[in-house]
């Protein structure tokens, strides 16, 4: 039996503004419960929402980066339902006239682009958090998150399998970080995804869809979608129908299960929020946002591959981290001798492993791109060996001194004087008579050992190739 899968994704991206969308409370993650909940967030009698300027900037930024139409007038509406983490008994969101709509992104699938249309992206406030305790039979409500701004990004059901869904989600995840509007931290819940999944026979109308929530990792999405598709196929093939419902992904058991939903056949009774006035978005405003848009990931990727001649893999590694790709380019711009590929190797290699070791992000990395560029150039022109270069990076990281000062202080320069190198080689040969015999007996490979000894004795300051050449000469 031939089944087609139809998937649409709803992504909620928390906008990383300093204050909430309708109140001046902090949005910082991890605060003690209810310490970032003002009277407006708590829905006290008589309080009123006041709109944060930044969320408009961010939403328009997103709209421009995804080829959306930007509404010239946008309004907020109330979505009415009862839940303890929703203090006002309604969520301020957008229904009619969302801020941006009708756009698209192109993702890479099997070597070619696939267009995923974006129906709309709208602004709304996040709800608080509830913790349910089976022992005390109580739920504990923390409203710190209530009022944090969200951009809800709704795609058309243009994806046909889990892989496409993941690629799309990854692209949006990358994009919002490039735009600087969301930190994309899935663990902290700043980037959440729900999937709408249905199946149909090719040529048929859309089938009944289910909504799957709680997909807070890329891995979850793949498993959840695949499970759900199988579940739906099995149901239909056995003669049942699909119930339109919300399901939770249960990773422990690898299944989706029906949610006893707060939104069960709920009529939200949307109407324009009378406490907020319409927002007009002028062409001048849009143009000013456009002029400040950063280079987008796809464009950057193409430029890295076509102009800077990086490999696809290397480009991808760099692009994945917006700040890292910026650091890379800054460094590459400053090197005088090394080319982009060489710089990229250092970034993907030594720098990335240092970041991992220290468990920090590139914006906390203490070595400047200027200093790194200098070091890479010195390796490139032979002043330093690869090893020494690596060592110098570590030394320079913790030091205020400039590169030249460290090199001379620690005598890091490679020895370039051939006489000096020969003297070291003589010493090595003098204490390795056996190995000389072996070499002369035909074991060419032993030269590697001798090179190693030379490196050791010189404190790594001899260029291994030079050592090899000179050893060869002496031994022949």
């Amino acid at each position, binding site marked *: 039996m031939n089944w087609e899968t139809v998937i649409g994704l709803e992504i909620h991206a928390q906008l990383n503004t300093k*204050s909430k969308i309708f109140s001046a409370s902090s949005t910082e993650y991890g605060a003690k419960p209810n310490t970032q909940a003002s009277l407006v967030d708590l829905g006290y009698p008589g309080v009123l929402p006041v709109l944060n300027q930044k969320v408009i900037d961010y939403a328009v930024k997103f709209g421009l980066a995804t080829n959306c139409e930007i509404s010239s007038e946008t309004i907020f509406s109330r979505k009415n339902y009862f*839940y303890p983490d929703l203090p006002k008994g309604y969520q301020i969101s957008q229904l009619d006239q969302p801020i941006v709509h009708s756009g698209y992104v192109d993702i890479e699938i099997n070597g070619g682009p696939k267009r995923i249309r974006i129906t709309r992206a709208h602004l709304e406030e996040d709800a608080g958090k509830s913790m349910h305790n089976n022992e005390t039979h109580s739920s*504990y409500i923390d409203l710190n998150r209530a009022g944090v701004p969200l951009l809800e990004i709704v795609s058309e059901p243009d994806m046909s399998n889990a892989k496409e869904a993941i690629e799309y989600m990854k692209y949006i995840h990358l994009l919002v970080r490039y735009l600087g509007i969301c930190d994309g931290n899935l663990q902290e819940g700043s980037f959440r995804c729900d999937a709408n999944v249905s199946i149909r026979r090719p040529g048929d109308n859309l089938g009944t869809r289910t909504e799957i929530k709680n997909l807070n990792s890329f891995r979850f999405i793949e498993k959840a979608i695949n499970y759900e598709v199988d579940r739906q196929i099995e149901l239909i093939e056995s003669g049942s129908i699909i119930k339109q419902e919300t399901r939770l992904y249960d990773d422990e058991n690898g299944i989706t299960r029906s949610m006893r939903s707060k939104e069960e056949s709920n009529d939200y009774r949307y109407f324009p929020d009378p406490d907020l006035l319409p927002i007009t978005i002028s062409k001048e405003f849009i143009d000013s946002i456009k002029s400040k848009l950063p280079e987008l990931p796809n464009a950057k990727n193409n430029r890295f591959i076509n102009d800077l001649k990086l490999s696809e893999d290397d480009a991808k590694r760099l692009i994945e981290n917006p700040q890292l790709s910026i650091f890379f380019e800054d460094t590459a711009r400053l090197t005088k001798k090394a080319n982009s590929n060489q710089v990229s190797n250092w970034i993907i290699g030594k720098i990335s492993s240092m970041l991992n070791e220290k468990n920090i992000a590139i914006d906390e990395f203490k070595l400047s791109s200027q200093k790194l560029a200098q070091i890479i150039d010195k390796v490139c022109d032979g002043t330093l060996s690869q090893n020494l270069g690596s060592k110098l990076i570590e030394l320079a990281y913790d030091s205020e001194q400039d590169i030249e000062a460290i090199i001379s202080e620690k005598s890091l320069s490679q020895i370039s004087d051939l006489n000096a190198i020969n003297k070291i080689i003589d010493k090595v040969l003098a204490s390795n008579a056996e190995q000389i015999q072996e070499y002369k007996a035909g074991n060419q490979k032993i030269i590697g050992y001798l090179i190693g000894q030379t490196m050791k004795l010189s404190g790594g300051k001899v260029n291994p190739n030079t050592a090899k050449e000179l050893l060869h000469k002496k031994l022949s």
Partner: protein
Amino acid sequence: MKKQDINIETLKKLSMIHLTEDESNQTLDKLSDIMEMIDEIIEVKVTNIKPLSNPLDQTQPLRLDEATEKNQSEKYQTNAPKTKDGYYVVPQVVE
């Protein structure tokens, strides 16, 4: 507006209001009367008229993105009937 058109049970559920059967019936009667009065608007012609959501012709003022609110949770929670360790406590919600 016939009484049957108003599903009082749905309305009660949506607005989280409990009424006894007697109260429901009485309320339904009154609601029907009120809706009959409201139905006078049916005859009004409103072609090409834009809804007026707000009597002002203004646009929304915008606030600078600054976190200026200070933590006053202790003060606020003196108003709450049940709290624990800074949380608001309610009977368990089953999801």
